[in-house]
């Protein structure tokens, strides 16, 4: 007893002494303080507050399904859909997808970066120290000023994923004021097919409003039960099916909606252009087209007719893996079942070597069969006036402030330069200008061609895992002079950052892009406030705040709302005469009833829809882009859709196929995550714990790979380790997987997987040679050939 006491006392004395030192050093700063209200707060602890806001788990749009979050004593405890808003199928809907329900796990994940960091040690060493926001912002400002002075403003390139309002509204404005045109797009989603449709038929509609009038709905490469679970599309399709619509699903794998189709057509990944051209061949060849529409509203039909003669079903069959008679019958059906609409998606027009042509050909199918903007066809959308007019800063990006030679200075146009200079044609909302291609910009760091980017930033995008060729990306990020990233987690790119900025969570800010939060309905328009649900943790801030602050520090305060986020939000509401405070104080949102009855739905608005196209007509022979320089400026764009097929494919590279006999692709969107986001959340990760490859059981058994077993997947470009998931609804020569597995899940004891060779990032498998990218939109093919073996 005595000894113990002695040891303990000495121990205490020693630490006590250290404690004195510590206390002196600290100057008495404390973490706990007397709080007169503390006892009162304790009494309130049981109260549950309900705070309305928005989830945006499924898309980067930042305003999506309106939700009600339950908060108890400053802590999020539960989430549900807001029935007032009109989510999904309409007012009264409380539905939400699986992702939304992980709100609490998302908010309280311990893995977040909460403080600004700066690199110490070599790039890639992963050594960082905490700094203040002041130091972080000053550093960034000085680097941006230095780069502009030494190398010109174009040497600063900002990398983005697809659509995200904090960037599309305020970052674009900042970049235009700063003088760089290099807003860098991933070129992997929505933008490419939007462009293809716009230059062919003048619009790209995703409206499901008229599906109940359809007699045939063709789901072609669209994945809405994965990408838009609660955004109305699966629901609208289910209703149409219940109402007796004929439903055909053209996708490589039998996803849930395909299992409900009258006909599932398991097309080979990356061959949709061939199928579309063959369908045009049959429709035109057999005279099944709508002669009136063709005569009145199509330009160059005869040339198209001649052009597609070569693309017979017999030609397309070995390419697509679909029998010629199935192709021919499908074509006949699409032409003669009226009205018909084709729902396209990422799988068909955003990640293929000839995605632009594929999408253009599909639009032409709709056009020549007389299905554009007709009841039940490709309806161009309601012109329901909004009862809450808003100021849309996505349009007001101050493009005119860019130097006059900015377009010439675009480092790597993500779509042809000449088109970028025509925003009135391309449509300022949804497809922006100017724009460079992220992948090529990163390559330029290594090649120095046409010039070297000096400062790169990334926000809300995991560039190292989500583009192609992660190795190249890592080398580029390592080499670039200055790289800063804003994120919530240690994503793979953070390894190479000079400065890391902590982004707060979706529930920690009330900064808004109102125009997307507006739900415009036949009975009126509803708007809700995005509310801060809980206080931002640590020193995390919203992506909006970052740009306004940066703008103010760079001397652009006058054009960036004085750096004041409240002012920014208030100005959006001005045209509607709504005060920000009033919206904040309206927990049920503000609903403005329609004062005038809606006119009957308009159709066939062709003069309006085609007005920006040459001759004011659908471009069967495309004079808008044909013969003009492509995005690379090494060649010209075709006048009519042309087939290329994937860079590696069974029909395209038969010699290679002898060594790599299976086709590999990925789903892009998946209902249990948002690409690589949310894969670390326990309730979602336990539903897909391992990097999976869906494989036909017969094929797997041939290679001795059991269900749930690790396998090696190797393409000519790299290899990965994945877990086999037996799946009957997939052809024996096709494998389907998913990108984005770098997040760990401690709760389940699961690791994050490496993004390089031998890891589990499927992007290492695909072709990263720009010669094999789509020449119009720089989209990068997500199809290749692989060989597999048991691990």
């Amino acid at each position, binding site marked *: 007893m005595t000894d113990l006491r002695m040891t303990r006392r000495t121990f205490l004395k020693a630490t006590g002494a250290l404690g004195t030192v510590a206390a002196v050093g600290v100057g008495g700063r404390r973490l706990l303080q007397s709080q007169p209200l503390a006892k009162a707060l304790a009494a309130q602890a049981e109260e549950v507050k309900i705070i309305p806001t928005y989830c945006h788990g499924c898309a980067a749009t930042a305003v999506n399904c309106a939700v009600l979050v339950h908060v108890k004593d400053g802590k999020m405890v539960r989430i549900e859909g807001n029935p007032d808003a009109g989510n999904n199928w309409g007012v009264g809907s409380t539905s939400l997808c699986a992702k939304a329900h992980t709100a609490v796990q998302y908010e309280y994940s*311990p893995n977040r970066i909460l403080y600004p960091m700066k690199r110490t040690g070599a790039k890639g060493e992963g050594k960082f120290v905490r700094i203040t926001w002041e130091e972080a912002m000053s550093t960034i400002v000085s680097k941006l000023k230095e780069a502009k002075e030494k190398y010109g403003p174009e040497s600063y390139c900002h990398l983005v994923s697809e659509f995200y309002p904090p960037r599309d509204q305020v970052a674009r404005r900042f970049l235009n004021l700063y003088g760089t045109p290099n807003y860098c797009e991933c070129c992997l989603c929505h933008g490419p097919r939007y462009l293809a449709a716009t230059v062919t038929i003048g619009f790209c509609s995703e409206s499901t409003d008229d599906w109940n009038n359809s007699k045939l709905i063709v789901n072609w490469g669209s994945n809405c039960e994965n990408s838009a679970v609660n955004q109305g599309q699966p629901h609208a399709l289910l209703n149409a099916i219940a109402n007796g619509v004929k439903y055909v699903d053209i996708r490589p794998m039998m996803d849930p909606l395909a299992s409900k189709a009258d006909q599932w057509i398991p097309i080979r990944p990356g061959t949709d252009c061939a199928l579309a051209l063959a369908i045009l061949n049959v429709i035109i060849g057999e005279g099944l087209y709508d002669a009136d529409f063709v005569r009145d509203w199509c330009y160059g039909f005869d040339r198209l007719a001649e052009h597609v003669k070569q693309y017979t079903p017999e030609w397309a069959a070995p390419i697509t893996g679909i029998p010629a008679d199935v192709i021919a019958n499908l074509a006949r059906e699409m032409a003669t079942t009226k009205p018909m609409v084709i729902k396209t998606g990422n799988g068909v027009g955003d990640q293929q070597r000839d995605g632009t042509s594929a999408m253009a050909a599909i639009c032409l199918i709709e056009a020549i069969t007389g299905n554009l903007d007709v009841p039940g066809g490709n309806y161009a959308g309601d012109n329901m006036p909004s009862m809450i007019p808003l100021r849309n800063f996505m349009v007001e990006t101050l493009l005119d402030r860019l130097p006059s030679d900015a377009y010439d200075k675009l480092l790597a146009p993500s779509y042809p330069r000449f088109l970028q200079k025509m925003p009135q044609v391309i449509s300022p909302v949804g497809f922006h200008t100017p724009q460079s291609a992220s992948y090529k910009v990163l390559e330029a760091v290594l090649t120095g061609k046409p010039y070297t980017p000096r400062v790169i930033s990334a926000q809300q995008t995991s560039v190292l895992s989500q583009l192609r060729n992660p190795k190249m990306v890592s080398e580029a990020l390592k080499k670039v002079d200055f790289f800063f990233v804003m994120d919530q987690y240690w994503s793979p790119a953070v390894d190479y950052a000079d400065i890391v900025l902590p982004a707060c969570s979706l529930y920690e800010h009330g900064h808004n892009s109102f125009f997307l939060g507006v739900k415009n309905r036949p009975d009126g328009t509803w708007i809700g406030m995005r509310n801060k649900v809980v206080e931002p943790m640590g020193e995390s801030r919203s992506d909006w705040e970052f740009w306004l602050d940066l703008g103010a520090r760079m001397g652009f305060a006058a054009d960036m709302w004085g750096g004041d986020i409240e002012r920014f939000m208030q100005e959006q509401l001005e045209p509607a005469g709504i005060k920000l405070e009033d919206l904040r104080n309206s927990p049920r949102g503000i609903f403005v009833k329609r004062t005038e009855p809606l006119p009957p739905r308009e159709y066939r608005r062709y003069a309006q829809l085609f007005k920006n196209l040459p001759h004011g007509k659908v471009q069967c022979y495309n004079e808008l882009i044909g013969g003009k320089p492509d995005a690379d400026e090494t060649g010209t764009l075709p006048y009519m859709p042309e087939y290329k097929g994937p860079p590696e494919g069974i029909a395209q590279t038969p010699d290679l196929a002898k060594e790599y006999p299976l086709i590999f692709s990925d789903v892009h969107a998946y209902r249990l995550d948002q690409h690589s986001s949310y894969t670390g959340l326990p309730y979602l990760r336990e539903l897909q714990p391992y990097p999976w490859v869906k494989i036909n059981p017969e094929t797997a058994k041939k290679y001795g790979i059991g269900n749930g077993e690790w396998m090696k997947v190797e393409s000519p470009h790299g290899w990965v380790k994945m877990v086999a998931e037996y799946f009957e609804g997939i052809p024996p020569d096709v494998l389907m997987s998913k990108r984005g597995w770098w997040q760990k899940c401690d709760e389940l004891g699961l690791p994050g997987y490496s993004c390089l060779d031998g890891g589990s990032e499927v992007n290492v498998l695909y072709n990263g040679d720009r010669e094999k990218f789509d020449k119009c939109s720089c989209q990068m093919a997500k199809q290749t050939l692989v060989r597999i073996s048991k691990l």
Partner: protein
Amino acid sequence: MTEPLSKSQVLEILQSRASTYSFLSRVYREELTPALLAELVQQMAGEATDEAESEGYRTLREYAAKFNLQDLESEATDLAAEYAALFLNMSEHPVFPFESVYTSPERLLMQEARDQVVAEYREEGLDRTAEFREPEDHLAIELEFMAYLCERAAEAVEAGDRVAAAKYLEKQRNFLQKHLLVWLPEFCQDLQRAAGKGFYKGVAHITEEYLATEDETIAELLGAL
């Protein structure tokens, strides 16, 4: 049976304990400034005692011995980088200094443990300061709370108020058993593993060793009242 402690001995122990808790809280709360680090190193590099030393002290003395006081800035930066890697998620294997992470089934922040400690703080009329925006079951706060209770107990002893002193000591024992001792042993193991060698490994050992003595110390103090 040894004699009970005298009043001055009780006060001395309470003072020491308060300092110890403050020191540990400070170390976990944020990075050490160069000045503070230099002082600590100088003190640790001081005369080694003959008495059997704890692993924690040995580790810290080894760290101090290798420390280059001439290059203080660089050493401090290295240590700050380690702090970020360990506690601010800037590495593959961070250690989470939050009780909720260790005691909730899904290893999340802001779970039941946090609610419970907040209730304890509030009972004393305390709440987290506005500048520190992390959950209240952060190790630094829990340790500071213990320091606070030591100080309140010392005040009570000074004033001759046995009842109050006992109350604070009981609160400490309760907090120790219901909270600190529930998660810190595992946390310290994780930290020892993740920290490799050097300063934070030493701190992890000291934390573990110190807490192991607390139960008995409190019992002794209570017995002396």
